Structure formats: C-alpha cells, structure tokens
C-alpha cells in the first residue's frame, strides 16, 4: 500500500489521488450495491413463495410459468438492454441506485442530468458520476416521500382533484423530457437536432419500444462521433 502511494506521488499527486479516491468509491459502491440488490431480490421473491407454500395458495407451476414466459417475452430484452444502454451515463453507483429505485428514464436520468447541469459537471467524468449519484440518491428519497403518504392516504387524495385538472397529468412526462433534452441541446445544439430528428422518424414506425430506443441511441451516437471526427480532421 505504501509503495503504491509513493508511486502515485511520483506520477503526479493530485491526478492519481483522484483516481484512487474514485477506485475506493467504486469498490464500496460495488459492495453496497450488490448487497442491497441481492437483499431486495431475495425479499421480493419471498412474497410469492410465502403466498404459495406457507399460506397454500399455490396456483400451480404451469400457470405461473405461462404468465411469466409471456411477460418475459415482453420485458426480458429490456432487463439487459436498459442497464447496458444507461451505464455510460449513470456510472457504477448510478446504475445500482437507479435500477433498485426504478423509474430510470422518467426520474433518475432527469435528476442526474439536472444535477450535472446545475454544477456544470460533464457526464462521463469523475465529477459527473459523483454528481449523478448525489442527484439520483436525492431523487430516490424524494420519490419515496411522495409515494408513501399518498399510498397510505389511499386514492382519496386523487379523487379530490377535479377531473379537468387530471387531464393535465399525461402532459407531465413530455414536459420533463422536453426540458432535459433542451438542457443538453444548449451545450451541443447539433446533437439535439440529430437526436430529435432520428427520434421522431423512429417513433413514427411501428417498431417495438425497446428497438426504437436502441435504434435512436445507436444512430445518434454514431452520427455524433462521425461529426466530431470530421471537425477534428478539419482543425
């Protein structure tokens, strides 16, 4: 350990100490991330096991399997695609929190992006990852603060809201997405134009949702890289 530290000092202290701090952070994130994820997995699966075998309401494996296979047919690709697509943005710790707390696209990513924007941290950098983690962590807590009392208070609260106001609710998502998109488009307007153009074309096709996402991601990233390369060649 001591030798390592000396090496680091020789290499230029400030840079490597940052790398070291980040590595320590990642190791802890891997430990706590996996610990919390596996605990949640076990606890979640205990619910149906309890209903089936302790209370004796088992509907039969055939029925469970039938339902699960159809459901998996829809979501199984997404189990793998989503974490992989978002990993470069969320980083190690962001991935662990986002997929446990859920609502990655509509809550975690916007919160991470807003936090990075607020303090001017680039996504994909060390500062960017730490900022994303702070943003998503805070978002997760706020989300639970909303969720718990409203579920406990039951649907009463919502039934009090007049119907014409309830018509606005579906507009919340496009509002979030439009705002976050602009946040990035300010820095790289050309990226925004490309992403939106490809997004609109892809979304007018009858493709499956996750294929649309993947297409949009791959095409936009490829075109942006090509543009940057061309710029570099010119410069």
């Amino acid at each position: 350990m001591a030798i390592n530290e000396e090496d680091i000092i020789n290499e230029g202290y400030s840079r490597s100490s940052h790398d070291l701090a980040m590595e320590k952070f990642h190791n802890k994130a891997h430990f706590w991330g996996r610990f919390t994820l596996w605990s949640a997995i076990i606890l979640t699966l205990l619910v149906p096991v309890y209903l089936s075998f302790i209370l004796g309401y088992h509907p039969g494996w055939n029925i469970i399997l039938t339902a699960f296979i159809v459901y998996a047919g829809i979501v199984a690709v997404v189990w793998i695609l989503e974490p992989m697509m978002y990993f470069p943005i969320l980083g190690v710790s962001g991935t662990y929190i986002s997929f446990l707390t859920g609502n990655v696209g509509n809550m975690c990513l916007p919160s991470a992006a807003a936090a990075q924007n607020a303090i001017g941290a680039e996504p994909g950098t060390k500062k960017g990852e730490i900022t994303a983690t702070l943003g998503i962590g805070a978002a997760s807590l706020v989300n639970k603060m909303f969720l718990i009392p409203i579920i406990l208070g039951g649907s009463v609260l919502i039934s009090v809201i007049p119907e014409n106001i309830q018509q606005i609710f579906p507009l919340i998502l496009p509002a979030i997405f439009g705002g976050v998109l602009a946040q990035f488009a300010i820095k790289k307007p050309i990226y925004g134009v490309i992403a939106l153009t490809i997004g609109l074309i892809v979304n007018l096709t009858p493709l499956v949702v996750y294929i649309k996402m993947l297409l949009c991601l791959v095409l936009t990233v490829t075109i942006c890289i090509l543009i940057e390369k061309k710029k570099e060649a010119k410069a």
Partner: protein
Amino acid sequence: MEQAMELANSSIVWIFAVLVLFIVIFQAIKFIALATKAGKEIGMTTVEVKSALKTGSIAAIGPSFAIVIVAISLIPFLGDPLTLLRIGVIGSAPIESVGASLGANAYGTELGSSDFNVQAFTTVVWTLCLGGVGWLVFTALATRSMSKVEKKVTNKNNKSKKIMTIVTTAAMVAAFGNLASAEMVKGFEYILVVITASLTMIILTTLSNKHKINWLREWSLGISILASLFVGSLAIL
C-alpha cells in the same frame, strides 16, 4: 375478489413491502454518504455537493407526482402494499399493469373480476416479482463487468477518453430525444408541451449562466415543467 383483496392488504404482504422499501431508502442514504465523501476527495466543494442534492430533489418532484398517479390506478387491483413494493422498487407503472393483467389472464380471469381469487392474486404476484427481479439480477451480476470494460476503454489514452465523453453526451441526448419524440407523436398538445419546456429551459439556463444565478439553475427543470404544463393546459381546457 374480496378474499383476494383481503390477502393483498394483509399484514404479511405489508411486512415484505416495508422491508424492501427500507432497503431502497437505506441504499439511497448510503450512496449519498459515499458520494459526498468521494466528491470531497476529488475536489468538489460542499456547495457543489449540496447543489447536486438539492437539484436532484427538485427534479424528482414532477416525475414523482406522475409516478404516484399511475401507482394509484393499480391499488384497486393489487392492494396497497404490493403497489408500494412494485412501484417503490423497479416499477415502471405501465409495465407493472401489463404484467398484472398477464398474470390474471394466465389464471383464466381478469384483474378486478369477481372470480379473481387468492390463487389468481398469487399468480399475479409471481409474475410481477419474477419479472421485476430480472433488472436487479442483471444489474447485480453485470455492473462490475460493465465498469471494467469502461475503464479499459477510458484508460487507453486521451483520444478514447474524449470519444467516451462524446458517447456519453450523445447517448444522453439520444435517450431524451427518443423519449420526447415518443410523446410528441401523441398529438398537438404533447408537441406544444415539449417545445414550451425546451424553450423555457433554454431561456432559464442562458439567464442563470449569464448572471451566475445558482438557485435558478437548480430550479430550471422544475420551472420548465410547470410553465409547459400551464401552456399545455390552455390547449386542453
């Protein structure tokens, strides 16, 4: 149906739901603590850390509201604790409702139907819990490998580091370009809302950058959502 809902709201389901929720909250607090410490070590100021936390919280208010609305629509079919468990963890509400009806169908009934019994409810719970665990299992198993691959790419040289930054920025823009356009194809008021939110965001960010107004930067997403909802509501109502 009644018996199934009694089971759905029974204390045993509550206990599991509360335990899982506890893990989610514990994880968020633990990671905030880890990130705060690491942030200081890589040279972030306390002001920056606080600002990131504050901005994340504000940005989550709008989405949380939308999420809770969908969650509430599931309560009549799944009961309070299961809804909390599914929406509080992983839960993207539209997907959960698909899974719930698939489970009920496999048992040969429908959600909310009079012959929706305890076995049908158990089938739904199996479907949702097995289905939801997929993301968690993949994330738990693969995050370390994904991180190694990323490190290999970025550690190579400055050029690949630069490309990595382009990829992340482009991926983020692409993700939101796709999400926004999926909403825009739904109709005029959706287009109007996306455009208003974008314009408000551009104006607010320009203002806050120009005059170095920190609080405006933290609230910009919240204000953009409100402003665009207001304009959207004028179009609907």
